[in-house]
């Protein structure tokens, strides 16, 4: 994996605060007159898994969109100390930010292997001239890309599908294929948008195991999800969002006792029940 060197003394990996991998300050995203994310500041450390929770429409996915450059956003983001230009997916990719979307984004015209290979950081001899004039070099680099993609498929538990058509995958397998594509890109920061959505308990457990296996002292993970136990098992820290604002940030044990979180999740229901 292409990862930033971890400074000495880094703890992370759920063992306490390591050095900052991603630092976002004052992130705001607006769609017309609607401010989907409002002045959110968050830090992700090396080896840390940050869970993001909140009601529907609270801006969780939009925050991931801002980090992955899919939407225009204001504010500042630095990755391992390097400022990153927002609103450019390619810049985010180059910085090692890789994304898994809420709905599976499988390319059905391509095989499983090709779905994963596309995210390879090895782009040598992959252009037109390379493909036409440098066939042996192109094929050697393709083999390198194949090898890496197969490893990613193995890590994500779908190696058996390999060169098969992606159109025949089940919903759960398509989710894993998306994850394999992100893993293949050697992420420094992995953004997962509701990875357990639509999965049954057994599939969610398997996904949790795969994500736990992915954890390294270098990798930072941001996972948005509605399944609290899934977030609890995976995350060392939880960010709670409501109406575009970050309303709480801390260890899962503390977060679920926080009155603002209780209000955000349960308060209105309790209020409306009383009325």
């Amino acid at each position, binding site marked *: 994996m292409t990862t930033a060197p971890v400074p000495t003394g880094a703890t992370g990996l759920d063992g306490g605060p390591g050095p900052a991998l991603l630092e976002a300050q004052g992130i705001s995203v607006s769609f017309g007159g609607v401010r989907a994310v409002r002045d959110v500041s968050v830090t992700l450390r090396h080896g840390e898994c940050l869970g993001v929770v909140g009601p529907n429409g609270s801006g969780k996915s939009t925050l991931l969109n801002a980090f992955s450059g899919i939407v225009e956003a204001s504010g500042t983001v630095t990755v391992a100390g390097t400022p990153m230009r927002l609103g450019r997916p390619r810049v985010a990719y180059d910085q090692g930010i890789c994304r898994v979307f809420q709905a599976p984004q499988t390319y059905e015209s391509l095989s499983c292997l090709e779905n994963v290979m596309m995210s390879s950081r090895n782009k040598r001899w992959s252009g037109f001239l390379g493909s036409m004039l440098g066939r042996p070099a192109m094929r050697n680099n*393709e083999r390198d890309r194949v090898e890496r993609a197969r490893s990613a498929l193995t890590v994500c538990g779908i190696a058996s599908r390999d060169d098969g058509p992606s159109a025949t995958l089940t919903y759960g397998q398509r989710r894993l294929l998306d994850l394999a594509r992100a893993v293949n890109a050697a992420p420094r920061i992995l953004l997962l948008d509701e990875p357990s959505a639509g999965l049954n308990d057994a599939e969610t457990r398997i996904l949790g195991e795969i994500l736990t296996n992915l954890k390294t002292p270098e990798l930072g993970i941001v996972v948005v999800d509605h399944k609290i136990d899934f977030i609890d098992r995976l995350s060392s820290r939880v960010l709670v969002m409501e109406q575009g604002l970050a309303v709480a940030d801390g260890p899962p044990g503390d977060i679920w006792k926080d009155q603002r979180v209780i209000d955000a999740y349960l308060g209105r229901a309790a209020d409306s029940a009383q009325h």
Partner: protein
Amino acid sequence: MTTAQTSPEVPKLLADRSLPKLPGVYRQHQIIGVAIFAVAACLILPRVVTSLSDQSLMNQWTAYSIAAIGFYWIFGLAGRFAFCQTFMMLLGGYISAWVTRELGPQWFLLGLVAAIAATAVFAALIGLATARTGEFYFAIATLAVTEVGLIVFPKLTSLTGADGQTIGISPPQIGGTVLLTGEDVFWLFIGLLTLVLVVAVLLERSPLRRDAIAARDNGPVARTAGVPVVKTQITLFALGSAAGGLSGAMIGHLTGTISTDSFGLSLSIGIFLMLLLGGSDSYWGPVLGAAFYVVIPQVLTSLQAYETIVYGGLLLVVVILLPHGLIGVGRSVMVTGRHLWQRRTAASS
């Protein structure tokens, strides 16, 4: 001390020094298909097609096939609807005619190269200028390029001739041999079509195809996966336009004339129909579609008054009933045949 038991997998693993297998698309023997096509075309067509008018149609088919394969790269593979393929054909025709007029007919091949280069560069510039536009605006922009070209070309008289009509273009000439007859030209044109098909095969078996499909089917996700979406689309637009330029140059040298009248909107739609009729998900589709496009109107001339209606009806039937084009029918027949064969062999064993 007990001897450790070695897993039977270990020696196999240590001995396995094979290189990783490439994706399935690399293992398809497409190049053999192109070779069979070229040999079959060379053996059959010159014997079957003997009249001058039919030879002219046959040569038109090869030229249109190349233009339509170019359009397949732009639209079928990269997913960009460009309405300027005929503009590129026209530009290629003018450039090649100009080169042979200025330098002499013996520079015919240089004319073709100049046509390819000029159209590729021009398309790349259009591609860069429209890189951030959506699909709809790209289509409109390329339509505008064609329309502007049809107005501007007649005014560039030093390049295009009076009223945009270049006449007296020299016939193809290679190594001092002038290709005067339809059959002579056919050998050259089928060679050029085969070369373009070889490029198509190499493209299909390359990372560029994967990037193009990723960019076509879901650009935003492809961008987050590091796929160079804009670069890929511009590359294929330039490549497809270059094929258009080559086709235009071939038509110019075949007919001896190039004019804006022959490369208008109707031919733009015609090239789209070639791809649609043949099948837009394979480079064989345009070749088949071009044959259909060239031959069917000739067959239907006996119906005279009803020709347009019958032709339109046929197109409608093909488009509605055959969404994957004629090539899709062939593919279905092959799959059914394979199933039947497998069932038969299973039953006999």
